[in-house]
């Protein structure tokens, strides 16, 4: 399938705009850095929730584990700031993926609502554990080391780091979904019993998918801990009621099970949320709650899902010849 040239141009324009943000809109660097993080959240959630049909409410666990692992390494390993940050994020990502493999072998045996409920406890349990463990600062959390550069350099650095995370995750998932692995995930979503009856090793693929999701979330965790400048067990690292729920909402809003849906959903959601915080201060959480209700009621299949139902031919679902078979 050849992409139309205007699509290449649109991607190039967005890329150029994204790279120029620190020059064009320096005041919004931190906000927009968080936008890229939200996009990674929605994309990694959709890998299981949308493509594989396993709604996880515990993905924030991997984010928090990555964040803690990174900051601990930065604190204890005695490396320079950037070496510590990069090695720490990498270690956090690997730890998160290993944890997903371990948990997956148990929890991924649950299906449907049972899986969702089973994962719901993960983030909460991790938050409680972290806030009772003095080695990681207990309830007070941890503070990553100070950014060494000049004033303002920190925001620009983390803006580009967050952008890089999203810019790596999206093409990686695009490649993954085009492979047979992506088809197997879809097959599991549509009918897992059938996939097993056809001989597919579903448990192995489910666990691998969760590991991939956890890896990118762990990587993001390290960056976000440093971007925000503090690691709180319940409010930042294992923030199930904010980040954990937003991941799900953004993917649903944009369209579960599509590549671009989570990106669109994250952008719309983050922008709306920031506007609420700016213009409806005091009522921002009420407005956000209403927005969530509106999303679920009016966009049950998301923005892209709605578009696909409306114009299926645009998405390649067409009958090839005038006459149809039996």
């Amino acid at each position, binding site marked *: 399938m050849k992409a139309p040239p205007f699509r290449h141009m649109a991607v190039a324009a967005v890329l150029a705009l994204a790279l120029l943000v620190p020059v064009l809109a320096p005041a919004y660097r931190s906000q927009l850095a968080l936008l890229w993080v939200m996009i990674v959240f929605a994309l990694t959630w959709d890998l299981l929730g949308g493509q594989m049909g396993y709604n996880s409410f515990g993905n924030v666990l991997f984010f928090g584990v990555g964040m803690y692992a990174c900051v601990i390494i930065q604190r204890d390993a005695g490396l320079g700031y950037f070496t510590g940050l990069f090695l720490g994020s990498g270690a956090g990502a690997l730890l998160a993926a290993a944890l997903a493999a371990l948990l997956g072998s148990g929890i991924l045996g649950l299906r449907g609502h049972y899986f969702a409920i089973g994962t719901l406890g993960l983030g909460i349990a991790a938050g409680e554990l972290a806030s009772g463990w003095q080695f990681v600062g207990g309830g007070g959390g941890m503070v990553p080391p100070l950014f060494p550069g000049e004033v303002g350099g920190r925001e620009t650095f983390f803006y580009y780091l967050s952008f890089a995370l999203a810019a790596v995750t999206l093409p990686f998932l695009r490649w993954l979904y085009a492979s*047979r692995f992506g088809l197997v995930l879809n*097959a599991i979503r549509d009918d897992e019993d*059938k996939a097993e*009856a056809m001989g597919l090793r579903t448990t192995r693929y489910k666990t691998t998918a969760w590991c991939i999701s956890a890896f990118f979330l762990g990587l993001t965790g390290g960056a976000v801990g440093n971007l925000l400048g503090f690691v709180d067990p319940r409010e930042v690292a294992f923030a199930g009621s904010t980040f954990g729920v937003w991941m799900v909402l953004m993917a649903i809003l944009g369209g579960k099970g599509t590549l671009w849906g989570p990106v669109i959903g994250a952008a719309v959601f983050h922008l709306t949320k920031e506007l609420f915080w700016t213009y409806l201060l005091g009522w921002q959480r009420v407005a956000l709650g209403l927005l969530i209700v509106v999303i679920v009621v009016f966009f049950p299949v998301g923005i892209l899902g709605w578009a696909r139902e409306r114009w299926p031919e645009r998405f390649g679902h*067409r009958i090839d010849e005038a006459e149809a078979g039996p």
Partner: protein
Amino acid sequence: MTFILQLERVRKAFGGLIANKDVTLRVPAGKIFGLIGPNGSGKTTLFNSIVGHHPIDGGSIRFDGREISRLRVPEIARLGLLRTFQQTRIYGGMTCLQNMVISVPTSELGWRSMFSRSPPEDLRRAEDLLDFVGLGPKRHLRAGDLSFGQQKLLELAMALMSRPKMLLLDEPTAGINPTLINGLLDRLRRVNQQLAITLLVIEHNMGVIMNLAEYVYCLAHGELLAEGNPEQVQKDPKVLDAYLGAR
């Protein structure tokens, strides 16, 4: 004669209900055999037992010379014994072509090939098989948007895609337009002869089973009631009783 599938005294109970009671049944390689019986006689339970959907309570099941009664569904499928479902099961959110290319034998899905796209020869074979069942023009439609009968044909094509040695077909003609049944039977015979796939077919439509199978087993109340060539079984007074009630 070599038997590809051999069941010896297979027993399966759900609590107090004995769904299969010491069923002994043999299917020789390369043949089309039938399995009939009134509703609730344990045919689908027997299929589920064979493919490892649930553990059996007693007896033995051998496929291709190997005991499979302790293996699980995907393991048995990888040995080349596949079933289709009475309530057709396809991947509804994927296109017909995607349904097909992901149904290749799992031995071809190693880690490396898993993370690459489907090779062109798979696509070609998928399209050939879709043409074979008459779904060629619909290959880019979502499988969930097909009619029930079309989904049944797709499910058959998916099973063929994975190059099985033997297929267990659970009511392949149910829900298919009567005018298309003959075409389907013709395809099943070609599957059997040209691709050398052994078939064991559950069927309620007597005309179909008499036409298709060369040997028929009849179950009633979980027990094997009669067996023989279709004419014999059809005339067997026990079979008539089981279907129509005792006279």
